[in-house]
């Protein structure tokens, strides 16, 4: 492997690894700071809800509850059946879940779209800043070239 450049320098990778799975880390990028560290209460709750529902514990728990419900009401285990085959009440409960999951998915999507918008705005600012720096460098090099040309003229006049 070639030497890692700036992009993959060990120090940077180390810092990234520490923030990898921690959205509450102290962020460096202004957009991340605005989006996570300075999030409003509603935004924070939205993030927490989508993190909770979009997680393996939620999916596994839901699967177990679903199987238990179906098993009890199919074979009549332990207690009186409250929702016999074909499980119409279970259908209602799951529909209820899906009814809320949809808007929450959109909530998370909107959060993300907002972040994308801010990221682009920030990139435009950065591009302006970069252009200004490049212009300063260009002006400086032009100054340098002018001086070098004047030295050349001096030398030419001397040897003439």
């Amino acid at each position: 492997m070639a030497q890692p450049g700036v992009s993959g320098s060990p120090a940077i990778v180390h810092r990234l690894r520490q923030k990898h799975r921690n959205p509450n880390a102290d962020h460096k990028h202004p957009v991340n700071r605005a989006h996570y560290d300075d999030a409003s209460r509603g935004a924070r709750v939205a993030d927490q809800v989508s993190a909770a529902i979009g997680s393996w514990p939620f999916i596994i728990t839901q699967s177990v509850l679903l199987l238990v419900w179906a098993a009890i009401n199919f074979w009549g285990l332990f207690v009186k059946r409250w929702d016999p085959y074909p499980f119409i009440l279970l259908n209602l409960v799951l529909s209820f879940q899906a009814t809320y999951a949809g808007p929450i998915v959109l909530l998370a999507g909107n959060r993300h779209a907002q972040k994308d918008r801010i990221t682009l705005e920030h990139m435009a600012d950065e591009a302006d800043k970069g252009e200004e720096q490049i212009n300063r460098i260009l002006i400086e090099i032009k100054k340098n070239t002018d001086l070098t040309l004047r030295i050349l003229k001096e030398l030419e006049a001397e040897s003439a």
Partner: protein
Amino acid sequence: MATDAKVTTARGRVAAKHKHPVNQLFHDEATLGEHVADQAAAGIGSWWFLIIQSILIVIWVTINSVEFFTHKWDLYPFILLNLMFTIQAAFTGPVLLLSGNRQAQKDRLRLEHTAEVAEVAEKATLEILEEIERNTAATLKVLEHLQKRRDSRSAAPAQS
């Protein structure tokens, strides 16, 4: 950069280590749960899934409505099929959020990486500018030196 660092096959599978540190952390160092989450999102969001689901629905409805088939388990209006749809929707929501959370995690990590690299780049740009300014100052001194020499030479013959 090493040319053997091919990262994706034609089907998008990860074949070797990624070059970008964000991809390394996100894909190469994914936990089992994260890996399965990516696979699940890729599996459900594919034409294969849609096609197989459609075929199963057609088979289910056909067997339970056409008289030719004798073993029926879910007569019109297909209440159990309704439950199946609901179960699918009840799991798609969380998987959607799971996948969205993964993407948000990557986005967060990418911005942090951008900020790290931008910091280094800005420092380098300022160093370049300072170096050119030093060069300009040195060149200016050379010019002044030459001018002084010319002045003293043109003054010398006049005095003699």
